[in-house]
């Protein structure tokens, strides 16, 4: 596109240039011809004057020849504008008489140059008695074929001046001098004001005034003067291009000298040049306009192209990042799976191994207790693994919903301490907890999740603190930002192994662990901290960690919890957990809805071990039917599985509550399900159940829940 524009304009430019050159050449030759013709005309005019003068002089000579006394004839002649002096010298004499009455000799007249007019000798130019430039023509006076004398007539150049146009030629712009060829002096000059300046005296002056210094030109001029040829040449006069000329008159006895500005000859030239300039300017404008349009178009396209490239680059980058993230995630999950495989297989190996040993040593009660204890521990570990995995999975998928309820911060802290304290003692660690500066103890929040955060941080501290180490839990009330929110800082500090700076960067990433599980005895899913951070952020808080290797670690959680409208509970000091008497299920009878036979059997056995009895219903409907048929007070509580065929636990609970409207009373219904999440618990409560106990069953927890709800029923 651009090249084609350039090409088109190059062609047009060439055409315009060629045309203008041609016009210029034609104008130039026309100017030369024009000036030559004008000069020829002036030359002819002057030569005609000279010839007339000569002819007239010849006539006078003839007249004188006819007179008896030529000198008397001369004396009566009065000067006029053409003939300013007439003189006569008789043959054989050197002195004659002028019409002025003065004696006349040929002395002072120079005929040596040999110039003639009509065959009559003409003298060189001279300054005459009138103070003006003049020339003399001499003519023999013959009577009857015999020369009786010579007639000398003096003419002034002013005669020629009067014959030239009064206003000069070429609109007064041309300059015209008459130069005597022999002396090279200017004998007739223009009459402009500038004539008083230097440069009008002679040819040298002319050269100087007009700065004609080129030796070639001057040599050529000299040759022309010598040979009586005319010459025309270009030379700038006062910065204006001019045609300079030397034009011989009367075979070169005198010359016309001068210059004409080219513009004066080519008056149309200016218009032509202006038009050419207009065309060129128009073309250039069009050219630059095209260039501009092309440029704008190109810029627009370039902008679009760059935008597209940028878009593609961003897409590529995003894809690359996504790919990298996917790869990282994949690698992490591969690592995680590898770890999990190891971590699950390890306790599973213990379970299966000790089960084998149990089978072999079933008769030895001590070993049975030992093996079952280890199987229990391995099972617990497996459970925690599964819980964490499920938790993180839910958090990552955004399905976690916080259950905001009023709770007592001090109670929650106490409950956590009750869990941690014995574990710490068991590991030989010192655990200290304190709650300070909290203005409002009753807050609104997800107590379970707060507990989870505390337990995660504390169990993590315990995990990475060696025996004899210290663990501190500090719950501090910070300055409130709003009257409706309590600003709380939770700090868990230990003086354990600490962490490397590198690990600090990824501690909150999922599926990471301080050491690879194959080389580290510390067991865990590597999800605890990720879960903790996610929960804290879900609650609108922040978590930081400070740690140095072998110095210990400090986890700091800042959260804001809404203050409950009524502070029903006074802050309770954090204390060791209650160690009250173990609750007994002795004599109680339960309706159990459980579709899994093994689970049903286990539950039956566990309850049996506690002195309680139960009746199993294989699904929800059967359970409802059984409850319908039951006598009031036949069952103390219903233990309801959730996922069951025919009718699930929720529907069954709702049906039972429906039946109770007819029958009266309210039996505690406790959900026992592998659906262990908070929302599962909420769904269970919404279905009319009273509590939720996750599988695998923690018998102590179950007993506590049962006691709580049976006592509540009894209270009613």
């Amino acid at each position, binding site marked *: 596109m651009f090249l084609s524009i350039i090409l088109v304009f190059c062609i047009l430019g060439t055409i315009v240039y060629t045309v203008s050159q041609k016009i210029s050449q034609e104008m130039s030759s026309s100017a030369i011809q024009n000036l030559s013709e004008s000069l020829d005309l002036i030359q002819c005019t002057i030569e005609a004057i000279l010839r007339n003068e000569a002819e007239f002089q010849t006539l006078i000579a003839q007249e004188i020849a006819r007179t008896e006394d030529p000198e008397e004839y001369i004396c009566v002649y009065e000067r006029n504008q053409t003939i300013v002096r007439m003189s006569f010298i008789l043959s054989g004499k050197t002195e004659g008489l002028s019409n002025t009455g003065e004696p006349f000799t040929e002395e002072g007249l120079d005929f040596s140059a040999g110039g003639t007019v009509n065959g009559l000798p003409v003298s060189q130019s001279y300054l005459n008695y*009138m103070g003006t430039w003049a020339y003399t023509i001499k003519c023999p006076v013959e009577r009857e074929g015999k020369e009786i004398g010579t007639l000398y007539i003096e003419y002034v150049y002013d005669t020629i001046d009067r014959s030239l146009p009064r206003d000069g030629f070429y609109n007064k712009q041309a300059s015209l001098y008459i130069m005597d060829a022999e002396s090279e002096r200017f004998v007739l000059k223009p*009459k402009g004001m500038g004539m008083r300046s230097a440069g009008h005296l002679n040819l040298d*002056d002319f050269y100087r005034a007009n700065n004609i210094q080129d030796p070639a030109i001057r040599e050529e001029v000299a040759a022309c003067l010598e040979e009586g040829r005319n010459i025309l040449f270009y030379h700038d006069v006062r910065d204006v291009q001019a045609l300079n000329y030397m034009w011989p008159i009367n075979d070169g006895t005198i010359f016309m000298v001068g210059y004409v500005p080219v513009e004066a000859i080519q008056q149309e030239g200016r218009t032509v040049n202006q038009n050419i300039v207009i065309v060129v300017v128009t073309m250039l404008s069009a050219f630059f306009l095209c260039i501009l349009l092309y440029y704008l178009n190109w810029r627009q396209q370039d902008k679009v192209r760059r935008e597209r490239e940028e878009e593609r680059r961003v897409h590529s980058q995003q894809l690359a990042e996504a790919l990298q993230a996917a790869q990282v995630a994949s690698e992490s999950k591969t690592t995680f799976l590898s770890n999990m495989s190891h971590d699950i297989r390890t306790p599973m190996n213990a379970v299966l191994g000790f089960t084998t040993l149990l089978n072999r040593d079933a008769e030895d009660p001590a070993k049975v207790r030992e093996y079952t204890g280890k199987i229990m521990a391995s099972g617990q570990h497996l459970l925690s693994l599964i819980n964490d995995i499920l938790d993180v999975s839910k958090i990552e998928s955004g399905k976690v919903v916080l259950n905001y309820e009023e709770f007592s911060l001090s109670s929650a802290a106490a409950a956590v301490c009750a869990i941690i304290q014995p574990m710490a003692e068991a590991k030989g660690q010192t655990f200290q907890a304190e709650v300070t500066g909290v203005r409002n103890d009753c807050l609104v929040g997800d107590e379970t999740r707060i507990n989870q955060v505390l337990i995660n941080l504390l169990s993590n501290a315990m995990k990475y603190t060696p025996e004899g180490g210290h663990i501190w839990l500090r719950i501090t009330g910070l300055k409130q930002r709003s009257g409706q929110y309590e600003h709380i800082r939770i700090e868990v500090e230990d003086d354990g192994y600490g962490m490397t700076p590198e690990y600090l960067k990824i501690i909150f990433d999922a599926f990471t662990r301080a050491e690879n599980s194959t080389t580290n005895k510390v067991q865990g899913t590597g999800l605890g901290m990720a879960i903790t951070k996610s929960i804290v952020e879900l609650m609108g808080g922040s978590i930081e960690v400070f740690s140095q290797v072998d110095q210990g670690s400090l986890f700091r959680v800042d959260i804001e919890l809404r203050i409950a409208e009524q502070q029903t509970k006074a802050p309770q000091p954090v204390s060791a957990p209650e160690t009250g008497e173990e609750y007994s299920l002795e004599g109680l009878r339960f309706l159990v809805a459980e579709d899994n036979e093994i689970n049903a059997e286990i539950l039956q056995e566990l309850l049996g071990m506690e002195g309680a009895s139960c009746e199993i219903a294989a699904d929800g409907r059967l359970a409802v039917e059984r409850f319908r048929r039951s006598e009031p007070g036949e069952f103390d509580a219903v233990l309801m599985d959730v996922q069951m065929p025919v009718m699930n636990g929720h529907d069954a609970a709702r049906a039972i509550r429906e039946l109770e409207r007819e029958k009266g009373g309210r039996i505690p219904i406790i959900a026992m399900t592998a659906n262990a999440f908070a929302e599962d618990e909420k769904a269970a409560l919404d279905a009319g159940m009273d509590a939720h106990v996750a599988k695998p069953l923690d018998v102590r927890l179950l007993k506590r829940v049962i006691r709580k709800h049976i006592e509540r029923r009894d209270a009613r």
Partner: protein
Amino acid sequence: MKQCSKRGVRRWAAACLAALMVLALASCGGGEPPTNLVTSDKEEGRDVNLFSPMEKTDPNAENVARTASDLTVAMAEEKLGVTVAYRTYTAETYQDRTYDDVALDRARSNMDDLYLLNPDTIMTLGLEGKLADLSGLDSAKNLRDIIFTANVVDGKLVAIPQEVVAYGLFVNVDMFKQYGLELPNTPEEFLECCRVFKENGISTPIGANRWWLETFVFAQAYAGLYNGGNTEEEIAALNSGEAKYSDYMRPGFEFLQTLIDEGYVDAEKALVSEAIEAEGPDFLAQRTPIVMAYWGAANSETAYAKTDFEMQVIGFPSSWGQMPVMPMTGWGVGAQAEHLEDAMKVIDVITSDEALRLYSEHNRVISPSKNVKVDCVPALRPLNDRIEEGVYVLGSNAGMKVEQWGNTCQIVQKLLGGATVDECMAAFDELQADTLG
């Protein structure tokens, strides 16, 4: 986007085509040509022919005096609607006829209307009755008395100058300082300065031409006559023959003879030299510390307006101290001029107060009008101060029957040519006798 740009190009192309069509139509337009293609608005012009010398030096140099004069002529052309045609002459060499000779011939032959004349030709032509009486012009009423008096011949005001031409010594102050010399006041001091210059290797301390050495003579001859308070009586005595010009002239000629004898002036060179042409380059090149010239030369690039040294213009040495010499160059009108009426009007305009103010401001000269005063250039202040004090010598005086400027110049040229002082004095006596009859 592509569609859009195509549409834009089409729009531009359409606009360009429209513009071209408009141009083409405009170029085809035009009214019907008239039947007679020649517009004859020629008027018979009124010419006034002016004869003046032509500049001979550098063609590109500005001659402020000439430019100033041209400005006033242009003013006259504009006011009167006339065309002033310049006719010029300048001798190519010393062998040629002088400007004064040609001016005399031309005036006698009624060749021109207006003439720029030197004092002697004013006197000569005035006495011959070839110059018109200008006393009736308005501009004549503004002339300073001394100027008016100096240009009256036979009771007629025959010339009016555009500037008071004052001659002085142009000295290179730097060279005077270099040799510890004070600027001279008396002939003795002047000779001492020349001696010191000569001894210091300056072969010719005074640059001279064939025209202006007479100023030394005038300064010494007439210092007492014009400044002694008895001018009219002394001139009357000279005009009656009771006193001899030669008695006045002798000290000046003897002084010149001394300058020549001591080699302070190169007489042979001076005799064939035109004004400024010969001595100017040496003065500007600081090879000559002293030259003589007219006031305007200090303002003119063609003369001494641009020097590489400190220049001052002082009066000529005389027993009365530094003495300016003032000849009266002026414009005269031919009594039988072809265009007498217009020529009178032109001279009235070019010597009016308005024109003289323009002239003097441009040229920084002393104006002949008593109503025009301008500051002079610093170099001219010493000379100007003397003139303002009324201390000067006239180089020409129409009141003296023997013409001074031209005759003295010719007799000085005789001295340069080898004549003795006595022979020169005899020439004055003869001249006085011839003139007084």
